[in-house]
């Protein structure tokens, strides 16, 4: 074999190798994202598209599907149970936003003060309910809310000198179901949201407080004009996630109310309604229509929240 042949062969090799490298460079990004794309296509995109198509059928499993056009959607909008579920879910979400989040922020402000002793302990104490599952919390509060023998009624009866009767039915009286749910969720989630606010408060520049104090700002003015703007991105995040979480409420009322919506559907949420129609009554087509209606509603609410809090401008 001559030297010329050798060098030509080497050139070819190099040429081949360079082509392979070029192909590799082009293909690499696609290969890297391929596992995610394949999994998402199978377990994400396909079910999403399938559920959209299912929402136009009355179904009884894959074998029995009858096309019904938009009848699922029109029935849904005229079903009084659906509107009860919407009302309950919205009320719960409003309580989450206007009661639970201020409590969480208040706790965070309190526990970020240097004069509070044992702050680490209190942080853990307030956060710890979130370490328990919703199942356990549901069972626990079902016992605490007992009429006659439950701890909450006994305490309230003693504290109010008998004004609140021992016989108060939290979970068996439609008027008291929502307050019971809100109390339970505050106990469970206020500490969780407090952690987000605490982290945000710790990142606020202390110089801003000093400068505002020099300018004569009082505590409220500091909170209003320094703290709130500084932690606004976190407030928006907590607001959006809490709202979305509230709209998807299921386990807590389901367990607290004994595997059902409670008296007079007072604890019926949109997801409970979806679950009942899809998995108890067995019409997955109708349940898909409920799911899509909820998804569109959640998208609209989130967009409004982001717009109102100005988070999009921040971004």
């Amino acid at each position: 074999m001559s030297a010329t042949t050798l060098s030509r062969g080497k050139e070819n090799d190099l040429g081949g190798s360079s082509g392979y490298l070029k192909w590799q460079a082009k293909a690499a990004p696609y290969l890297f994202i391929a596992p995610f794309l394949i999994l998402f296509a199978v377990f994400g995109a396909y079910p999403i598209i399938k559920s959209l198509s299912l929402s136009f059928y009355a179904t009884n499993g894959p074998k029995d599907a009858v096309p019904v056009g938009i009848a699922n959607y029109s029935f849904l909008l005229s079903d009084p149970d659906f509107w009860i579920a919407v009302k309950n879910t919205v009320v719960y979400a409003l309580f989450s936003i206007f009661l639970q989040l201020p409590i969480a922020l208040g706790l965070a402000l309190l526990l970020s003060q240097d004069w509070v002793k044992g702050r680490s302990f209190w942080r853990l104490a307030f956060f710890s309910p979130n370490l328990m599952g919703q199942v356990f919390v549901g069972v626990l509060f079902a016992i605490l809310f007992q009429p006659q023998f439950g701890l909450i009624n006994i305490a309230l009866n003693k504290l109010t000198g008998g004004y609140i009767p021992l016989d108060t039915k939290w979970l068996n009286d439609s008027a008291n179901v929502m307050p019971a749910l809100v109390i339970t969720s505050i106990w469970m989630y206020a500490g969780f949201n407090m952690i987000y606010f605490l982290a945000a408060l710790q990142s606020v520049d202390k110089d801003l407080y000093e400068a505002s104090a020099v300018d004569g700002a009082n505590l409220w003015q500091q909170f209003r004009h320094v703290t709130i703007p500084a932690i606004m991105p976190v407030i928006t995040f907590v607001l959006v996630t809490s709202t979305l979480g509230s709209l998807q409420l299921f386990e807590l009322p389901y367990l607290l109310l004994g595997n059902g919506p409670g008296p007079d559907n007072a604890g019926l949420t949109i997801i409970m309604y979806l679950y009942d129609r899809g998995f108890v009554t067995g019409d997955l087509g109708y349940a898909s229509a409920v799911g899509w209606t909820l998804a569109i509603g959640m998208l609209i609410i989130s967009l409004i929240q982001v717009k109102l809090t100005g988070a999009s401008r921040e971004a």
Partner: protein
Amino acid sequence: MNLREFPFGYAALSMLALALITGTIILLNPPPKKEADLTFWTFAKPHYEAYEKVYHEFEKENNCKVDLQLVSGQGLPQRLQAAFLADLNDVPDMCENEISAAGSFFRGPVEHIGFEDLTDRIKADGLEEKMIASRFAPYTSRGRVFGLPHDVHPVLFGYNRTIMEREGIDVSKIETWDDFIKVGQKVTIPDKRYLIEMSATGRDQLEICLFQRDGGYFDPAGKVIFDNDIAVETMKFYVPLVAKNSKTRIANTLSSSFGAVIAQGMANEYFIGVMLPDWRSKIFENEIGTLEGKMALMPLPAVTKGGRRTSTWGGTMLGITKKCKNKDLAWKFAKFLYLNEKDLARRFAGTNILPPVRAAWKEPAFDKPNPYWSGQKLGRIYANLAPEVPAQYTHPFIGLAKSKFEQALNDCVKRYEAEGDKDFDAFVRQSLKKRADEARRQIARNPY
């Protein structure tokens, strides 16, 4: 390649290595496959424990292997329903289902129901005569029977005898609900003690009263009937017993009819008595030991003198799935568990559950005095009332119908508490019709 250059370093490499090692170990050591001729699911622990004692005998007799499994009561219907809907093979050969979940399996065309049609087998073996015929009704859809009844579940009134004696009440003189209410007004102390546990918001006890009067949610043809005259009369009778400020309020409830809640209610004399189907009597024996010897039973009061003195609460069916590999063997096992008189008598001693097989009631176990119930012959009292147990009919939308009936109860109680019995009849009719129409509207969408 230098290991240090591995993307994201040693941590990612270690995790990948661990995943590969554990994955390989799992692949090389698959869990042993259960080789059974029959797989049987039950949701009730007492049933499981009873079957566990006897199924080996069946295995020996038939040279086969049975895999008996206890599955969560919540999980069983959902797993089974999902498997039926998706036409999966991963279903048991036979299983027991709770009565309230049974109807949901009968949705869709009859030929697509996941359970085997047992009608011909039941007829061939003459089981409709041997068992209480009304107990087949809840497991029947469009004239075909898909389940074998496990029980009868007659309902009695179980009460704290010592309180009644202290108050000078002779229960043998209570014949009708009117008599019962009079006694209730005497012994009830508002907010402190009530004659009977009945809910103003839940449907369990109202349903018992509805069945006692031959009412129901659906008729045998699947038509919604919970707004008929019987339902109206039942509601008008029931609401004043549970509504606040009612002159005849003799009932109240805690947040649950089960577990520690009812145990506390009974032990603290908040309730004098409860509606007591046979299965619940065993729960009392197990969970409220302090009342041993103090409790007693009496038939439910009748609606009118000489009328029916019982009703029904709960039930279980045994079904054979269409995917069952050996349906004849499964049917044989079903009969082995449900028809063996000696064994049924033994099982009664452990569960207090009265079997629907009439011949079994002759066994001495049913005449044994029960010390918990003041020495009364529990089995005989239930057996005497069993033939009177009313039929209840199911439907794929039974859950919806129950929920709507409960909503009507809540409407009526609120109205009664606000305005008393003024125009109450008209209100009850209107409320029941409204809720029944809502159910009808939803059911009408079902194309099957």
